């Protein structure tokens, strides 16, 4: 298969690691970050001395408690990494943007092995009364919240419930379809010892749960957790003798073709996800038909629907028909989806958890939750609203 992607096959993934994941662990963000990064480095068959790059989303200086477990500086400092390249930021192609930046860095020779991490301790932060407060900053709604806060729309659940409702109106998507996404995640989480919620979820329980912002009920919203995820992005020339076969980054989705807003997009049944997906497919000869594993962001169930729609698994608008009762998303289905339980049941690792799971599946190391189709091409796509980024990975 072709290696003519954006990095000509030079950027590969060689390791993945996850810290302890759970609710109210009471550990610091840096502690969790170090655990995940050391596990990823060991998973690759590398040592800390081999790591010469560090990248993360969103970096330091973030006011919301628990949202940023550690900055790149803090990790570099803690592990004494001799970095020839590093970066962090949130204004990038979603929570996966730093992975794409790391691919560029290794392809251009700025680093050989970059550790990319995302860590959160939102559950502990909320339990200690530090719930992210929109009232900070003088008690006024500023920035993008200026046009939402005065109307009580201070949660992404409200911002994203509106386009979800519009897609339902225009195309006949139903709550049962959203429920199929949530139930699929829960079923997979039952085979993931690290997942936060593992008991089976029925459609009856789903439909009967309390509403948050219609059409989103409790089970349409992901669960805050404590945990860190890390992957190793390597230059292919530097991978001989490593633990896993290198995974090729076939293409990346980085587009944002309309304004970065939550409410002004011309077609409310699309999001920046559609722009990221379009740019990803422009950079590869592979197509959606070649994908045999999908890890699609589910901060809200509808965002998985959006990514399925954006990536072109079916003509725009036909998500309901494609989802059905979720049959194709099981381990023995044609498109296993979010097989670690996603963020809905696995916990909100905020983006990189999906990439971790894609690596595990492509390496065939899923154990009880290994997809039976032995996937060779996986798509990982994260973000919602104006936030979007995607990766196409292969074993080729």
């Amino acid at each position, binding site marked *: 298969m072709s290696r003519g992607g954006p990095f000509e096959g030079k950027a590969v993934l060689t390791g993945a690691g996850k810290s302890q994941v759970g609710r109210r662990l009471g550990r610091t963000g840096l502690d969790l970050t170090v655990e995940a990064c050391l596990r990823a480095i060991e998973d690759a068959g590398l040592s800390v001395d081999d790591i010469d790059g560090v990248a993360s989303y969103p970096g330091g200086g973030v006011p919301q408690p628990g949202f940023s477990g550690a900055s790149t500086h803090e990790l570099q400092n803690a592990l004494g990494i001799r970095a020839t390249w590093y970066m962090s930021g949130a204004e990038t192609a979603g929570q996966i943007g730093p992975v794409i930046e790391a691919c560029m860095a290794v392809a251009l020779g700025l680093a050989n092995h970059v550790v990319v991490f995302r860590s959160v301790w939102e559950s502990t932060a909320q339990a200690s009364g530090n719930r992210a407060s929109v009232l900070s900053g003088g008690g*006024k709604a500023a920035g993008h919240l200026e046009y939402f806060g005065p109307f*009580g729309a201070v949660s992404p*659940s409200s911002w994203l419930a*509106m386009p979800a*409702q519009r897609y339902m*109106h225009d195309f006949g998507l139903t709550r049962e379809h959203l429920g199929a996404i949530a139930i699929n995640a829960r079923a997979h989480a039952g085979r993931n010892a690290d997942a936060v919620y593992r008991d089976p979820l029925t459609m009856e329980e789903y439909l009967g749960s309390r509403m948050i*912002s219609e059409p989103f009920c409790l089970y349409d919203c992901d669960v805050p957790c404590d945990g860190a995820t890390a992957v190793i992005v390597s230059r292919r020339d530097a991978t001989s003798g490593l633990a896993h076969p290198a995974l090729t980054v076939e293409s990346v989705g980085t587009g944002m073709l309309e304004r970065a807003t939550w409410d002004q997009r011309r077609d409310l049944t699309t999001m920046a996800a559609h722009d990221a997906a379009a740019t990803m497919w422009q950079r590869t000869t592979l197509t959606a038909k070649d994908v045999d594993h999908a890890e699609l962001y589910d901060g809200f169930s509808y965002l998985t629907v959006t990514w399925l729609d954006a990536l072109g698994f079916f003509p725009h608008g036909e998500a309901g028909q494609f989802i059905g009762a979720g049959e194709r998303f099981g381990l023995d289905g044609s498109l296993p989806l979010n097989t670690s339980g996603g963020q809905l049941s696995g916990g909100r690792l905020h983006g990189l958890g999906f990439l971790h799971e894609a690596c595990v599946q492509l390496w065939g190391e899923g154990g009880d939750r290994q997809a039976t189709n032995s996937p060779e091409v996986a798509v990982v796509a994260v973000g919602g609203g104006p936030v979007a980024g995607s990766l196409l990975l292969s074993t080729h």
Partner: protein
Amino acid sequence: MNAYTRPDFRLPPQPTAESAAFWTGGERGKLLVMRCRACGHFFHPPAPVCFRCRSLDVAPEATSGRGTVAAFTVNQQQWLPGLPPPYVVAMIELAEDHDVRVTSNVVDVDPKDLRVGLPVEVFFEEWGEGEDRVWIPLFQPATDTHEGELA
């Protein structure tokens, strides 16, 4: 949800030089939205340049305050003290320019009557004191329907 009553609390906006007109037009009963004098389109939120034609010749202009519901949610979760649910958050497409939306609340409507395309009209709620005074634009079902606006 009928018979809207003013809540005890709304999170006040922090107006900027560009957005001040949007938040204060209500003092004279006007919904002021940025318009480009070069291409004629409205746009929102306010900015010092037209995103379509990049003209700098932009200024706030009074609209009819009429529009239609493009998307909505009935929020059922309490997020802010003094602003109890349920309440409707909606994106309102302006009658003047269907590509332009203002996110707000729709009040005085039974949720079962809410629908995409529902005609609505603006009213204003004054909050704050002195320099901090703002007139928050809210929407209610239109009292008389101009069918021509419901394209």
